[in-house]
């Protein structure tokens, strides 16, 4: 992340010098900080509320039931996780993602990470479970791309749902690829 971050900025500014776009870059820096903070303010509300609901479901013991429901999948990828709370949060994160509740998925994912960290000790190296959790998340679990369909109809698509089947197939392929990758890493 360190290199990636600095290379993006350095490359950007050098190109800006040659392209004569330094003024736009300076503007960009200002707007980016504004946009980042705006997004954070939006997130405070949404993540706050979802984390509240998450905690209610947790206190009622609902997350435990959810974990039992998708146990086979969890065992396959998170074979070495002993912490029960972590497994519950991971299940919740996966289910929320599949249903397209991205905002509910973030708090549960971060809580899962914190639980995994407890198991992992104080080091700064990611455990297998941490790597796997992120790879599965990044493979995009969301089955129905509701936002994209909404944008398509907003921009006058005659058939906004046309992409539904290919999207579901492509998402499945990327998720299967992620699961296979995680399983291959298990041997190492």
């Amino acid at each position, binding site marked *: *992340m360190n290199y*990636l971050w600095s290379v*993006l*900025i350095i490359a*950007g500014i*050098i190109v800006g010098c040659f392209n004569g776009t*330094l003024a*736009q*870059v300076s503007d*960009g*820096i200002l*707007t*980016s*900080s504004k946009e980042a*903070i705006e*997004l*954070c303010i939006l997130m*405070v509300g949404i*993540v706050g*509320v*979802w*984390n509240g*609901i998450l*905690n*209610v479901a*947790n206190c009622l013991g*609902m997350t435990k039931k959810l974990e039992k429901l998708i146990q086979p999948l969890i065992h396959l990828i998170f074979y070495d996780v002993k912490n029960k709370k972590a497994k519950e949060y991971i299940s919740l994160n996966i289910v929320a993602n599949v249903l*397209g*509740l991205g905002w509910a998925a973030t*708090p549960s994912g*971060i809580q899962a*990470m914190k639980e*995994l960290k407890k198991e992992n000790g104080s080091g*700064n190296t*990611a455990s297998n479970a941490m*790597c796997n959790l*992120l*790879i599965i*998340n*990044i*493979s*995009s679990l969301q089955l129905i*791309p509701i*936002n*994209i369909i909404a*944008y*398509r109809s907003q*921009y006058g*698509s005659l058939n906004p749902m*046309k*992409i539904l*089947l*290919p*999207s579901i197939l*492509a*998402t499945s*392929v*990327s998720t299967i*690829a992620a699961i296979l*990758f995680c399983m291959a890493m298990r041997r190492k």
Partner: protein
Amino acid sequence: MIGILILGILLYGIILGRDMYNPFLEGVKQGIQIVFELVPTMLALFLAVQVFRTSGALDMAVYALSPLARIIKLPEEVLPIIFAKLFSSSAATGFLLDIFKTKGPDSGVGNLASIMLSCTESCFYVVSIYFSTVKITKTRYTIPGALFATAAGIAASIFFQNI
């Protein structure tokens, strides 16, 4: 969907006769703390993406990669979308809407871009957000794995685009 979910949870709690208000407040408090911990990461990411984009470096990278794209029959217009999606969903959505405006959502490129955005997640964004909250710096095989899944999704989008 969201409403029904919340209704279900609350009804279940009422039936069990358990306290829900205090756990809710407790959870909200934690959630707000999580977001505050994320602020520095968000600023850093948005800064890098914005500098790279506004300077024209992104266009150059796309130009450099376009011969490769032609070989695998990938329309050039979707390259910035793929690149942006690695860092930020909102930047990628911006490019998607550009394509919708110029080519129309039902064009071949419009369809392909829609599918690609549906089957990928913002890799570096997710990695930095999640790992920054637990102070992990050695990410081991996370990024190769995530990029592998993303590449599989993009290949599948090209393959399934005309179904």
